[in-house]
């Protein structure tokens, strides 16, 4: 969620059970402003917390001109000193998925090791080669943040528009979804490169606006039912919770431009989802 709205929007996502202590909140308000100035971001967001066994990571995200492509992730252990996370490449994602198991430890220099045994059969003498893959927790963190953003980031329809130059930018005249619109899952979109998993017929795409409807809708997520939509806070705030990554909460106050999402959880994907629905 945007650092400007931190002081009131944390209350709105508190229904998931996690809040920031007053000390952490005030520390963030100061340090995020400094972060924005130092890195020259156009917007800086407090992305969330990843709870490790021995420690907690606070993650911030800075956005540049294009909200989808110019993203930089930073982490901190005490809300004041921030370190840049490396961007997640495909090879890094593959290594992390092989080497890491279980929960985050809480120490960014912790090294996960994984031994892979390759068999190279040549005639009668197969040779066993052992390859040890080591990966630090910092890289695992970078990959986790990247995956969560790619799979479960949420924005309301109309909040981000594509400028004629192709840049994705905040829509300053976004007035908010109405109460009826906020109850439908297809008014919420993922902020990521469109994957177009379902081919939409011309009937559906009839009244789409190319500046607003270039992102995937939440209702196309597989499996269906992996989002929980509720009206909380005395039924005034629309809260979306992901069941795939437990801990991601999105809030939107209908008829106002206030929206945002935050992830507070242990940073592991819920692979048992099909059993649980």
């Amino acid at each position, binding site marked *: 969620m945007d650092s400007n709205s931190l002081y009131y929007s944390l209350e709105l996502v508190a229904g998931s059970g996690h809040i920031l202590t007053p000390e952490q909140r005030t520390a963030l308000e100061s340090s995020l402003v400094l972060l924005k100035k130092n890195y020259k971001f156009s917007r800086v967001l407090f992305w969330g917390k990843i709870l490790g066994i021995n420690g907690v990571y606070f993650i911030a995200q800075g956005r540049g001109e294009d909200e989808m492509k110019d993203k930089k992730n930073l982490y901190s252990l005490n809300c004041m000193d921030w370190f840049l996370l490396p961007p997640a490449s495909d090879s890094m994602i593959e290594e992390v998925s092989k080497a890491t198991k279980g929960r985050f430890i809480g120490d960014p220099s912790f090294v996960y090791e994984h031994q892979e045994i390759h068999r190279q059969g040549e005639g009668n003498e197969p040779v066993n080669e052992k390859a040890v893959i080591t990966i630090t927790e910092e890289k695992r963190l970078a990959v986790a943040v990247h995956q969560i953003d790619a799979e479960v980031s949420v924005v309301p329809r109309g909040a981000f528009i594509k400028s004629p130059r192709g840049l994705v930018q905040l829509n300053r005249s976004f007035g908010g979804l109405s109460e009826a619109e906020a109850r439908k899952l297809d008014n919420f979109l993922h902020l990521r490169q469109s994957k177009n998993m379902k081919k939409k017929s011309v009937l559906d795409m009839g009244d789409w606006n190319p500046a607003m409807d270039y992102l995937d809708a939440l209702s196309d997520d597989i499996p269906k039912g992996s989002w929980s939509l509720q009206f909380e806070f*005395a039924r005034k705030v629309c809260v979306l919770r992901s069941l795939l990554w437990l801990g991601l909460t999105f809030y939107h106050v209908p008829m106002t431009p206030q929206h945002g999402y935050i992830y507070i959880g242990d940073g592991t994907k819920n692979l048992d989802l099909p059993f649980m629905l």
Partner: protein
Amino acid sequence: MDGKEERVQSAAAFKSYMLKNSTKSNLNLYDHLTRLLMKLMDEQPHNAVDVIEDMSSDVKRGLLEEMQSTVKDLPETTADVELAEQQRLLFTRPKDVDHEEELVETPLPNVSELSFYLEQAGVGLGRDEMQRIFLALKQLVESQPLLHCRLWGKILGTENSYIVAEAIVEGDDHSVDEPAEEEEREVDTQENEIDQLPQSTYKPPSVVPKEATGTGANKFVYYVCNEPGLPWVKLPSVSPAQITAARQIRKFFTGKLDTPIVSYPPFPGNEANYLRAQIARISAGTQVSPQGFYQVLEEEGDEEDEVSQSNYEPNPDFEGIPAAEMAESLSNWVHHVQHILLQGRCTWVNLAVKPGDESNEEGEADEKEEEPDEPEPEVGPPMFTPISQDAEMFNTPPWSLSLSSTLTSQHAVAVLRSNLWPGAYAYACGKKFDNIYIGWGLKYTGGGYTPPVLPLPQKEYPSVPEITEALDPSLEEEQALKEALEEQQAVREEMEATDEEEEEEDD
């Protein structure tokens, strides 16, 4: 004279022509010109003759708007309006309550204090929501005769969430619900008289009896509601079969208490029972207190076999452990809820006791010596075990300890987080402590969940030699057998013949 009359008549005719209502818009020219001229008189615009056409269309449009506004919208009752009306009741004060009654000890917990300490720990539902829950608990305490009440926490669901309160109801001790399973057995006996069908030798495993209210897993009664302000619903007590089934399934809650749970192994009950079973498991696994806060209640006349540790009370001599010490080592925290055994209860019940041998039920120890086939009693860890002895599962330590603040550690609160049940937290600060659970109600299962495998299909009938098929012997085998038999007979005849000869010789 005639000219004047003619003029009057033609004026009247023209007036009546102007008064005729148009078929399209139901307006007439006379009224329209009247209104237009009145408007001109009121407004007196410059260059009236140039703007007269616009003014005329303005007047017409003005008429139409008036007609439309007579149709009023029915105010729709939106969801937040409905809830606001119910939540208004939270803020009303009953008139006939004396001030004196309120100063007496009430079972109402101090949720504001809880909310403050949890906020220091980074857990909670936000100040406004906690305040509403506080008032809802007050409503609960006023409507039911409760001896003790506590906010247990919140369980999130896919469509709606549950706010759970833990309570002890006055006068509800040690009552056991009568099982309604005896009715089914009577129907079967009627079939036997008609026809002798092969009897099934399947005996379903005997059902483990429920624990009485006030003991073991049913020590507390739980009330839930979807939102503060809505009426509280009492959850039914939990049975061991439900706990064992809940340990094997993994399902999200939907938010409606009567949703059926479709799973394998089949869960005996609906969502209300599943919710109660998960609450029992979470309480048994994560409710902890500083060591020494509670002490065992001493009862007179204890039987040796009965576990009398289920009763505890706050220790009046407890001096409080400083938060820094609480945050350093896990051995300062102890469980104060009984562990649930594999059987699904807190006290073990020997199911193999045969009905009719009532004299043997008193001495369970004697039975163990006589029949070594008796199942071994399950014993859980004793009450007040420090949590440093909790087993590590899936390579993760079961608890994470921290101090709430490193900058102001003089007044910090010790925070304990469970890794096995994500969402279970406990805080301790001097003499105060509490537990809370805010989460999805699911245990951490390590890598992935695999549903239990179906059992093998049952054998339909016992394999007795009379009905087992055997291959018919082939021709060669029969002939070989015949020859062998003939040989044997020939040998026997010879033996008899030699015996007779011997007998004759002796004579």
